């Protein structure tokens, strides 16, 4: 340690440049060459209590903003989102290479700011691109969410419709069987309330009752699902509402700090080179400089340290 500090002070001009001036200059140059802007938009998520139902996947223990953020963040991590965003940014950035760079560096962030408020932000090197990116991102997320909800609802309702058709067919078959039995046995009275019906009549009657109950149950479930789907879709279509349109929040040299990170990397790289040079010089220097090192290595005392005589003091 003492050795390397001595090397630093021995070549202090060199190492001041390498370890302090050059990293600072590199950092400053990086900040100036790569400015950074950050745009944001704030969205409002309505409470679901107005509708009496929640969109699929929402937790009752989380706030609307948290639920919505969770859904949107999951969507943002998909490849579909990236593809849709790219498609939507074609107008703002026609050049594919430039668009690709902007999308790669956007660094979309989405998170709740309160119980109902969500903030979406993105970074880029020009303000207009930033605003366009955030706008496109919000639009894509909302569209995808609505589409997903619609797809889910459609799948569920289609399934229930098939079930209902099947149940109705079974009900019709049961009713037909009972009717045939009554026609074939004119003397037999079939009373749904009486307990004295014959065995066969009771069975047929029971089949009819069960089939009707199943149809009714599926119809209820279908109605409920259609309502929930409607509510979810309405919720997603209605909200989250954009309260603050995309705008630049921080701009110029600092931005969201990304330019500072780049500057730190540049400065750190140059510092590392300077430090490696210092270590190399220290390592290559095998001359006697450190009295403690001599004593430790040779187990012999350094009995005196005589400073350098200047030319006037020198003998001879």
């Amino acid at each position, binding site marked *: 340690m003492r050795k390397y500090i001595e090397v630093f002070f021995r070549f202090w001009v060199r190492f001041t440049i390498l370890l302090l001036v050059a990293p600072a200059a590199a950092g400053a140059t990086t900040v100036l060459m790569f400015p950074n802007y950050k745009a944001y938009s704030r969205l409002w998520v309505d409470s679901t209590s107005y509708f009496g139902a929640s969109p699929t996947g929402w937790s009752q223990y989380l706030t609307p903003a948290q639920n919505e953020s969770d859904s949107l963040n999951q969507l943002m991590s998909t490849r579909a989102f990236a593809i849709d965003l790219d498609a939507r940014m074609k107008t703002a950035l026609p050049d594919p290479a430039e668009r690709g760079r902007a999308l790669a560096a956007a660094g979309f962030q989405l998170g709740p700011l309160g119980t109902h408020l969500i903030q979406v932000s993105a970074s880029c090197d020009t303000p207009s691109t930033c605003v366009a990116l955030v706008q496109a991102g919000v639009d894509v997320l909302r569209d995808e969410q609505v589409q997903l909800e619609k797809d889910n609802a459609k799948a569920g309702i289609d399934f229930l419709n098939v079930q209902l058709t099947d149940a109705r067919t079974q009900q019709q078959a049961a009713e037909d069987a009972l009717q045939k039995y009554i026609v074939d046995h004119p003397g037999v009275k079939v009373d749904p309330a009486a307990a004295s019906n014959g065995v066969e009549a009771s069975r047929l009657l029971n089949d009819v009752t069960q089939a009707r109950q199943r149809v009714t149950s599926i119809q209820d479930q279908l109605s409920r699902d259609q309502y929930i789907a409607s509510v979810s879709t309405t919720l997603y279509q209605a909200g989250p509402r954009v309260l603050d349109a995309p705008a630049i929040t921080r701009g110029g040299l600092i931005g969201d700090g990304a330019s500072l990170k780049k500057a730190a990397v540049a400065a750190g790289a140059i510092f590392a080179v300077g430090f490696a040079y210092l270590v190399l010089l220290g390592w290559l220097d095998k001359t006697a400089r450190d009295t403690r090192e001599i004593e430790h290595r040779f187990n012999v*005392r350094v*009995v005196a340290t005589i*400073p350098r005589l200047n030319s006037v*003091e020198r003998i001879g």
Partner: protein
Amino acid sequence: MQAIGVAEQTLLQAVDSALEIRRPASGFVVRPADPPKPVLLPPWFLDRCRQIYLSVTFDDVTRIIGVTSALPEEGKTSVAIGVASAIASDTREPTLLLETAFEKPALARSLGIGPEGGLAEWLESGAQLRLARMPYLPQLVVMPSGAAHRDPARLLYRMSESNVLGQLTQRFRNIVLDLPSVLNVPYSSLAARLAERLVVVARHGVTNLDDLESVVFLLGRERVSGIVMNAADYRTPAWLRRLL
């Protein structure tokens, strides 16, 4: 051996002559024939050299400290002068600074005296030995090795075989040996044996640690009393060094 015996007599005569306090005749001032150039060492330098000799412990009454280094130009002659000056100044006892680097003498040049009449010539031919007293420190006597010699190993062998140091210890309680550097002089280990305690000079930012390790290994860790970090030029602020 006979030759050496005769030489020892001339050696002691020369030493006695050097140590003799000459009273000037009335109206005259004694002026040494070849006085060394005054060496102005800064006080802080002497303080650091004082640290060196005070850190070294001796078994005997006589102190014989050898100053050496891994390679030349690391400052061992300066440190030897400093240590000898500090000892002479502090103890007020006769102190000898003896140079044994015969292949590349530096002491005479450092003190601004001529190369002739040095230890090498005396060992080789028994020539008159010239000793120099340091100005302002009359108890410090300098014995340079003389002119560069072609066969320094033989000279040093003769010196180690004779009782030169034993004779000198009769006159000097403190002897500082400016030894040759260890790694580039083949007879350095022989020279190092002359000293009771050894101090190795390492030049800050110049001496290689591996070389220093070799020196400590060659001299023997138990004989090396300490390492002197010479020409230290720390760039780390002092307050930070204290923290580390």
